[in-house]
């Protein structure tokens, strides 16, 4: 993170709304964001049973357009973009030359014609500056332009079993016909909204990118129309939801010292007949020992493993916890972490050193939760 202690925190267009509706605000990647309004557990369970809305405007939104965007992004990202259809959304990684993960991103293909390819990319807030510099430092920037839309747009995620119907009614657009990981442009009054069926909670739902100046109005109308079915939820619940869903978070499960194979993100890398930054290093890694791998842990007791707590086998440290929480759905502590390959098999008994005391845990398959049960 590049934010210094003296830097004033950035505010999303919804900041005043959060503050005046009980949002407990905290610094997240240099932004003042709501961690919770009432209780993380209540907001979490409401998302699983009905719907929640999350302000995720802190994430960076970049647009790429022009004939050269295809080849530029193809080289930048671990998956192709040129074979994406308009409306498709793809999860991808940005690697450095050593195949370390610089960021994980969503790429939207928003337009195509003979002269124009158009993409949007959503980047983690904590990596905004780093990725902007990385893009700027790459060769081949002649045939396209890229525009940072973060400041003049807002982004919100509406997640949960009732989310799509609620947003569909509000936007008056057939979002229920939109396939998972697809997006569409919808007019709301005079405003253009980029709506995608994506999310970071393990629930069905959508994410919306809309002009900053109509974000509060949209947010308030959706809450009013939802009549208790959809409530605001903070980044605290967003985190417990994504951990249950086994989704990696940059800075925890992903970093420049981790490669995609270790993280279990092989699906997000397409090596077939193509070149991209980090490919050569990744080939060498795949040919040798991959090293530590990501696992899920379910604990026997009630104490919660936290980031950087040691994972122990036979009294010896074999890895570290990268994210841990108390799962509101399972009512047990859960964690993700990295260990050597001999400890990754499901049902392997391990321990976590929680502030000097060993707590029993076992390796479980990720994710901890799927909405289909």
């Amino acid at each position, binding site marked *: 993170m590049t934010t210094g202690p003296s830097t004033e925190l950035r505010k999303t267009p919804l900041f005043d709304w959060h503050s005046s509706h009980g949002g407990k605000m905290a610094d997240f990647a240099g932004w003042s964001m709501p*961690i*919770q309004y*009432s*209780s*993380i*557990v209540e907001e979490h369970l409401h998302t699983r049973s009905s719907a929640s809305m999350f302000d995720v405007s802190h994430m960076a939104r970049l647009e790429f357009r022009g004939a050269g965007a295809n080849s530029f992004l193809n080289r930048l990202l671990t998956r192709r973009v040129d074979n994406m259809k308009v409306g498709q959304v793809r999860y991808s990684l940005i690697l450095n030359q050593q195949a370390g993960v610089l960021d994980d991103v969503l790429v939207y293909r928003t337009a195509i014609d003979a002269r124009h390819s158009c993409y949007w990319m959503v980047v983690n807030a904590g990596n905004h500056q780093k990725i902007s510099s990385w893009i700027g430092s790459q060769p081949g920037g002649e045939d396209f332009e890229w525009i940072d839309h973060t400041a003049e747009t807002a982004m919100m995620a509406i997640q949960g079993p009732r989310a799509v119907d609620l947003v569909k009614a509000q936007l008056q657009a057939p979002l229920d016909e939109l396939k998972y990981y697809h997006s569409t442009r919808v007019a709301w009054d005079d405003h253009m909204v980029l709506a995608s069926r994506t999310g970071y909670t393990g629930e069905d739902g959508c994410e919306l990118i809309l002009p900053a100046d109509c974000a509060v109005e949209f947010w308030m109308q959706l809450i009013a129309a939802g009549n208790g079915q959809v409530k605001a939820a903070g980044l*605290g619940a967003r985190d*417990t939801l994504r951990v249950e869903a086994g989704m990696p978070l940059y800075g925890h499960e992903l970093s420049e010292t981790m490669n995609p194979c270790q993280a279990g993100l092989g699906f997000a890398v397409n090596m077939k007949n193509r070149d991209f930054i980090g490919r050569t290093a990744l080939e060498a890694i795949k040919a040798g020992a991959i090293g530590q791998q990501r696992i899920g842990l379910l604990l026997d*007791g*009630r*104490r*919660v493993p*936290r980031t950087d707590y040691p994972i122990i086998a036979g009294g010896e440290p074999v890895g570290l916890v990268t994210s841990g*929480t*108390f799962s*509101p759905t399972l009512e047990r*502590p859960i964690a993700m972490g990295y260990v050597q390959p001999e400890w990754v098999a499901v049902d392997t008994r391990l321990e976590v050193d929680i*502030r000097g005391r060993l707590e029993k845990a076992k390796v479980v398959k990720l994710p901890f939760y799927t909405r289909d049960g």
Partner: protein
Amino acid sequence: MNAEELLYSKTHEWAHVTERDGEKIATIGISAFAIEQLTDLVYMELPQTGQAVTAGESMGEVESVKAVSDLYSPVTGEVIDVNTSLVDSLETLGKDPYDAGWIAKIRLVDGGSIDELMDFEAYQKQCSEDG
């Protein structure tokens, strides 16, 4: 117990001190403000009967979904009773922090001081600055 008649530590524990047979006994707990700030409690580590505790030092922990906090002793002495039922009913801490939510009874050491603790008014002021 009436919150206004209790003494408070900077770290949000309350104490109610009574005298019995020339001994000072402090009943202690966690303030409503602190419980409200923690939210989503999942686990509590209590001190043990017979344990010697020191004012300002950790004697247990309170864990919420978000984070873990130390439970500090507001007084110096020996733990003579512990409310072990709390472990299985953490919601009591929020529902009834000053009666059913008591955590431990501590016999103060001879000459043990409670002068460091704040009265309700001073504690309220600290909370309004923290909140």
